[in-house]
């Protein structure tokens, strides 16, 4: 039995028929072609698939597409507009906050929501907020630096 879902993703409305067992992560990647959302562990540990559901970060591998009727989702593709990176994305580029990039979409969505709620975070706050996202390349140091840089730039703007 399929389920009809209508939702908004990155500001665009979509309506699809989905099978009950289709994970939201696979729906975004395969049905909508938004492959920026990465799939790592598929049990909620690695954080690579983190998206913003009505503005708050959630694991898209731990939800079913059938559950998201009427919801609004932002994926990593929705963080930039008109080809211009968000301040957080720019800071990741400038501070070398990624190497292979596999974890990056989940970290960007997680930290976008974090900075909205915590505009002037301490390094401890940043590390705690990052604790649910695994990165196996960077040793996290440059990710922490990138988030700090983004927070400084964003709070410096009037």
């Amino acid at each position, binding site marked *: 039995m399929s389920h009809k879902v209508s939702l908004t993703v990155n500001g665009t409305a979509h309506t699809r028929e989905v099978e009950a067992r289709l994970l939201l992560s696979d729906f975004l990647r395969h049905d909508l072609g938004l492959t920026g959302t990465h799939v790592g562990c598929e049990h909620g540990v690695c*954080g690579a698939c983190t998206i913003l559901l009505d503005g708050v970060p959630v*694991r898209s591998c*731990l939800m079913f597409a059938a559950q998201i009727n009427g919801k609004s989702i932002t994926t990593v593709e929705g963080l930039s507009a008109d080809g211009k990176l968000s301040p957080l994305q720019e800071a990741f580029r400038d501070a070398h906050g990624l190497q292979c990039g596999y974890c990056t979409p989940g970290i960007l969505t997680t930290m976008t929501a974090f900075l909205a709620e915590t505009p002037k975070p301490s390094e401890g706050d940043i590390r705690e907020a990052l604790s649910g996202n695994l990165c196996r390349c960077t040793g996290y140091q440059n990710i922490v630096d990138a988030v700090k840089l983004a927070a400084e730039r964003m709070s410096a703007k009037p």
Partner: protein
Amino acid sequence: MKPAPFRYAAPASLEEALALKAEHGDEAKFLAGGQSLVPAMNFRLAQPAVLIDLNGLDALAYVKAEGGTVRIGAMTRYHTLQRDKTIGSKVALMAEALPEVAHPAIRNRGTLGGNLSHADPASELPAVVLALGGTLHARSKKGARAITAKDFFVGVLTTALANDELLAEIELPVFPPRSGTCFLEVARRKGDYAMMGVACAVTLDAGGACSDVHLAYCNAGETPVAAPKAAQALKGQRLDDKTARDAAEMAKGEIRPFGNVHASVDYQRHLAGVLTRRALIAAYGRARA
């Protein structure tokens, strides 16, 4: 991996949800926040034939202070509880434990009712609800039933809920004046399961001696584990380094940790001793404040 096929139902009312569960029994699972159930389904450790999604039931998400108790709807998410003023002021033990539960993205979805129904003995909140002496209100098509926290947790991932029942509400007593609580744990990394954790509540009489003490532990056995002997021994006593140490030593003998790759049974008991002493002293200080 991907979940096995199932039938998905999103009931519009509690009554409809309970009717579905009564109809399908063990074949059906309630889906709350899904932060434990969906991983189990992705691994195919859980293969429910019917999934009853409770996420549309807003009536099951609330925090209400009534008389000497706080009532929490089962679908209230950790994120909401963490920011709730009633929880912060009247159920400080839970407020202190919530930031230790997993990570923000998990706390944005996970629910108190789902957590308790999952009954993972390593989780913080079963120990908190046990230490608080909470009452768990179950609903089924047939009616309602109240279960004490002590009777609710039966074994690893096993509760006293019958196969047609839903945990609908968690009722927590508000401690009287001159009470203090403390939650402490040691985890290898922020957000990981604790190697050992303690939930502690102390109430003092007018003379400053303990009139009531509760101690409960996570990752200390097949269920959240209480230490009633250690708690009882403190009654009528003043809390100081000596009495806290003695109680901690007793509590170490009352818990039944399994040990795992990260912490041997001896190390878990050692942690329980250290954390019990620290938590008792901290709760005592808060009770006097």
